[in-house]
């Protein structure tokens, strides 16, 4: 389970903008690693340097023990890069697309058919790509990326521009990508996506990595308050504020929200008063982590 991606002090400057400013991290084999940050944080540039599409101004990248820049043809068959949904040949059907990519990687066409099955596109094989929905295109794109069974898969914002339903459908597929020991590295600007999918998350802003850990460790280490909400008429505001452990209480629409760092006694006290109608407990999220790290609201 060694590191398959090693990034050391990576730097890339465009004019006076430090797009990537001293980024270092390692990704282990079989890991699903996420880079989370708002647009313009430097995620895509970092990924492109690791893939070998751009040359770094400083620092080193090793991918499976090799340098990806300049274009390293030994590395290309071992990695799979998913760019965006539209990177297809014009006017070909889903099956023709994946057969084309299979052939370019020297893989039998049968393998392409299997991949279409795996991403649940068997009923769309004869549909031209332009006629597929956004989610279907994205799944075909991922299938084309996986057709040669790469050891490392790069996904740049795989769910951007999809509706919430299609995003959640895609999560099921993305979550299985590293099942067979494959390493996956993805960028996203969705907090919930990083939280659900990634084994480890690097939070990035202004070209720097602010923190890097498992989503649970990131939120747990935060010492952020847990928010407990019940229906507004369950309890008086004064009574709620006076409960042991409650730091703050306020109405939010038709809910009463209690903030606490010791949820157990608060919940017990609420149960005692039979005030658990509409109960919701929300722990700290990556959004709170981002807020703490940067001192400002997350802007996706």
């Amino acid at each position, binding site marked *: 389970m060694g590191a398959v991606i090693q990034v050391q002090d990576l730097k890339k400057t465009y004019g006076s903008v430090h797009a990537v400013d001293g980024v270092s991290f390692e990704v282990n084999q079989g890991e699903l690693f996420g880079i989370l940050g708002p647009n313009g944080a430097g995620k895509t540039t970092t990924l492109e340097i690791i*893939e*070998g*599409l751009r040359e770094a101004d400083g620092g080193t990248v090793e991918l499976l023990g090799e340098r990806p820049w300049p*274009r390293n*043809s030994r590395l*290309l*068959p071992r*990695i799979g*890069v998913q*760019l*965006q949904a*539209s*990177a*297809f*040949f*014009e*006017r*070909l059907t889903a099956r*023709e697309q994946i057969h*084309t*990519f299979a*052939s*370019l*990687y*020297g893989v039998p066409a049968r393998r392409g058919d299997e991949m279409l099955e795996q991403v649940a596109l068997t009923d769309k094989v004869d549909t031209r790509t332009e006629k597929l929905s956004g989610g279907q295109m994205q799944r075909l794109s991922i299938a084309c990326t996986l057709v040669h069974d790469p050891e490392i898969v790069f996904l740049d914002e795989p769910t951007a521009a999809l509706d919430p339903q299609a995003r959640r459908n895609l999560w099921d597929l993305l979550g299985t990508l590293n099942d067979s020991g494959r390493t996956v590295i993805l960028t996203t600007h969705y907090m919930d996506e990083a939280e659900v999918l990634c084994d480890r998350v690097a939070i990035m802003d202004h070209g720097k990595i602010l923190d890097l850990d498992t989503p649970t460790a990131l939120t747990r280490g935060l010492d952020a308050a847990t928010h407990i909400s019940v229906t507004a008429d369950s309890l008086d505001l004064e009574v709620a504020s006076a409960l042991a452990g409650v730091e703050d209480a306020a109405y939010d629409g038709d809910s009463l929200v209690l903030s606490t760092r010791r949820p157990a006694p608060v919940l017990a006290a609420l149960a005692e008063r039979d005030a658990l109608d509409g109960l919701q407990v929300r722990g700290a999220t990556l959004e709170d982590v981002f807020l703490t790290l940067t001192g400002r609201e997350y802007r996706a």
Partner: protein
Amino acid sequence: MTSMATLSLAMWRGFIRDKMALFFIILFPLMFLFLFGGIFSDQGQSRSTLVEVGEVPLLSELPGGAKEAFEDAFDVQKSADLDAAIDEVRSGDVDAAVEQHGDDLVLHFSRADQVKAATVLGTVSSFVDGANVAASGQPPTYTLTPDQVEDDSLESIQYLAPGLLGWAIAMSATFGAALTLVQWRTTKLLRRLRLAPVSTGAIVAARVFVSLAIAAVQMVIFVGIAMAVFDLKLTDAWWMSVPLVAAGTLSFMAIGLLAGSVSKTAEGASGIANLIVLPMAFLSGSFIPLDVAPGWLQTVSTVFPLRYLNEGMLDVMVRGEGPAAAAVPIAVLLAFTLVIGAIATWMFRWEAD
């Protein structure tokens, strides 16, 4: 090799499923062929209309061969009303009116159309001269044997078809190269292929192969229809037009590659391609024969590869020149390809930004 075949197949499928491209590359030039072919088809044998007022024995009693020639040259109408006939000449409805008084033939004509006037005057007087010689009872001292240097069948279609074919090939090769490059860059397919074990050479070779195949299809359809419908007759060395078209396709692809390298969007690329192809087609004699163009225009036209393709095709396809006539045009076209291709390679960008 496999990647080249795979990419060629993908491009070919993309092309034959693109109805818009098929229209512009196959049907559009054919429309021009029918349009120009129809406009110019009667030009070679334009007939004049002549009204015979009353009896004109000289013309109606011409001997066999002369009678036939006369009927070829004139549409003859009969009339008894001299004034009405002269009015018709004046208004341009007919070209001339003729009446005979004894041995005197009077020809009424109009100077409004000078070419027509000269033709009618010359033709009618030649028949009168012929009749005079015959009346003298002497065999003529001098004879004239006309001999056209081109094939007997040299009609406008012979000039039109090669020129229009050249334009069609210039269009498809230029646009094919330019749009593939820009679209693949925009959709990031180009980047996707850069991340796959596919060489740049294979991508370029596939595009060249597909463009050559498209040019071959254009040539077969275009020449086939010109032969079947418009009676185009090819001369002996016509087969040299195949390497000519191939060399032409390469040079137009280089132009397309250049257009695709300097533009960011598909609209921009087709704009630049249009800006080059359309003036080039006019100035290279695709629509109008260059022989009638002023000298400076002929000089300007030497900078366009299409000019050499058109000239070469005319030489071997209809002018009856030998295979060697295509050698210089092919060499010039390949030189164009090298120079423009080198500039395009220098300007080439993988990425849009």
